[in-house]
């Protein structure tokens, strides 16, 4: 085993990988931002009374959930410029990262629409009724009463979605985006495929530390938003 495994490759890869984290971060960050906004829209379609909008939002969610990310990535990467081309727009020069962000926005929106929907439903209707009965407008009731309570419920699932997104982002290298995973692949290629194990262990370590940080951060947020809520221990 020692013959093939050389831990020094792990330590030398980490500093080479880290700078590329900002690509991963940027792509994930933008996707989360746009995906959450789109998800909000989708969930309001699902909760609303318009049947066509509801059917659309539900169909959209099913298709997105059932499409492997890699396939979606290719569909967007080639489909979007193709469609734009029909309208005389030339989009082939756009940076690869744009397509990656679009892909993960589409996907994250589907996940978030479910997260938001269930969080909204978990806040009893009574809270809304009480708010309008003391003279708040529906808008104010959503903003001041429903939203802060729904956030608490949504946080753990939001964290789940975020972690999943960071992982799925690993696929972006298939269309040539050099994020942290892409860089790991390049390092491996530069070694003629030798010592790939060590490089990927380094990659896993970085991801692991990041996920622990995210978990801790969300745990903190949960405690922060959780004021006034009685937490019941399970079983």
């Amino acid at each position, binding site marked *: 085993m020692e*013959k*093939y495994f050389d831990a020094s490759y792990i330590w030398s890869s980490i500093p080479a990988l880290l700078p590329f984290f900002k690509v991963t971060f940027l792509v994930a960050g933008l996707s989360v931002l746009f995906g959450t906004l789109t998800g909000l829209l989708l969930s309001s379609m699902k909760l609303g009374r318009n049947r066509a909008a509801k059917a659309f939002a539900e169909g959209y969610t099913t298709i997105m959930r059932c499409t492997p990310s890699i396939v979606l990535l*290719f569909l967007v*990467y*080639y489909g979007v*410029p*193709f469609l734009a081309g029909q309208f005389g727009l030339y989009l*082939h020069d756009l940076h690869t990262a744009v397509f990656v962000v679009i892909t993960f926005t589409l996907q994250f929106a589907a996940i978030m629409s479910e997260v938001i929907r269930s969080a909204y439903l978990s806040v009893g209707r009574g809270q809304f009724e009480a708010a309008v009965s003391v003279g708040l407008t529906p808008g104010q009731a959503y903003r001041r009463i429903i939203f802060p309570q729904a956030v608490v419920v949504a946080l753990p699932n939001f964290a789940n979605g975020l972690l999943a997104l960071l992982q799925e982002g690993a696929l972006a*290298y*298939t*269309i*040539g985006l*050099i994020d942290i995973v892409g860089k790991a*692949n*390049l390092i*491996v*290629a*530069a*070694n*003629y*495929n*030798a*010592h*790939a194990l060590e490089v990927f262990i380094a990659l896993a370590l970085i991801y692991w530390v990041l996920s622990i940080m995210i978990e801790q951060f969300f745990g903190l947020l949960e405690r922060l938003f959780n004021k006034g809520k009685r937490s019941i221990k399970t079983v």
Partner: protein
Amino acid sequence: ADGDHEVRKVKIAYDQQSKPMSWLDENGEATGYDVEVMKLVDELLPDYEFEFVGTTSDDLLIGVEQGKFQAGVKNAFWTEERTKKFIYPNEFLGLSSAGLVLRKEDENIKSLEDFASAGYSLAPIAANNAQYTVIEEYNTANPENPVKLEAGDSFTVDVVQWVNEGRVDGGVMIEGPFEKQVTAKDGPYHQLKDEVVYNEFAVIKTWPLFNKNEQELADAYDEAITKLAEEKKREELSEKFYGRNLFDALEEVGR
């Protein structure tokens, strides 16, 4: 370039993880045998300006077909069927030496026939890799004595290590990488130089792939490459990237 002619920018995709044929180096520059030849072609074509776009093999193939890229290099071999999707120019880009990596004691296995007869197992090859095609074609031609061919992914398979470990009996490799890994003094597997061998079984022409609408570009390429052939530029690059002038073996190249 003459002033009244507009220079046309074209995108040439390359497989960025295929050292030494093509890769993205530490400085973020495209390089490798295939890329360097194309750079020379660019220099000879005043009407064109090449932009090299690094990507993966899958994306390169789809991208060139769709016109996202005008051409691509990925150590591609020629098959009849592929000519329906892409324009193959008249002139090839380079040569690739394919060989079997074997344990020292199997040194006497010189060809795919020998390998197949021994009933040996072969390391998986990525389905979109040219080597896969070579073996597949051999199997089609020799249905009574096929090599056990398995598809996998290049980045999970480390041929030299796998052969040495005994995980497989042999693997297909291009000569260049083998040189750099094992033979070279600073190669990561130099310590295995007495345990594994590389037995070449074929030298094969490699081609750039052009989008179906790029006949003009392909013709321009042909013109340039003919000139380079005269200047023996490809031979120099072969020496540089593969450690050996494969053009010496041009006579025996079947395809």
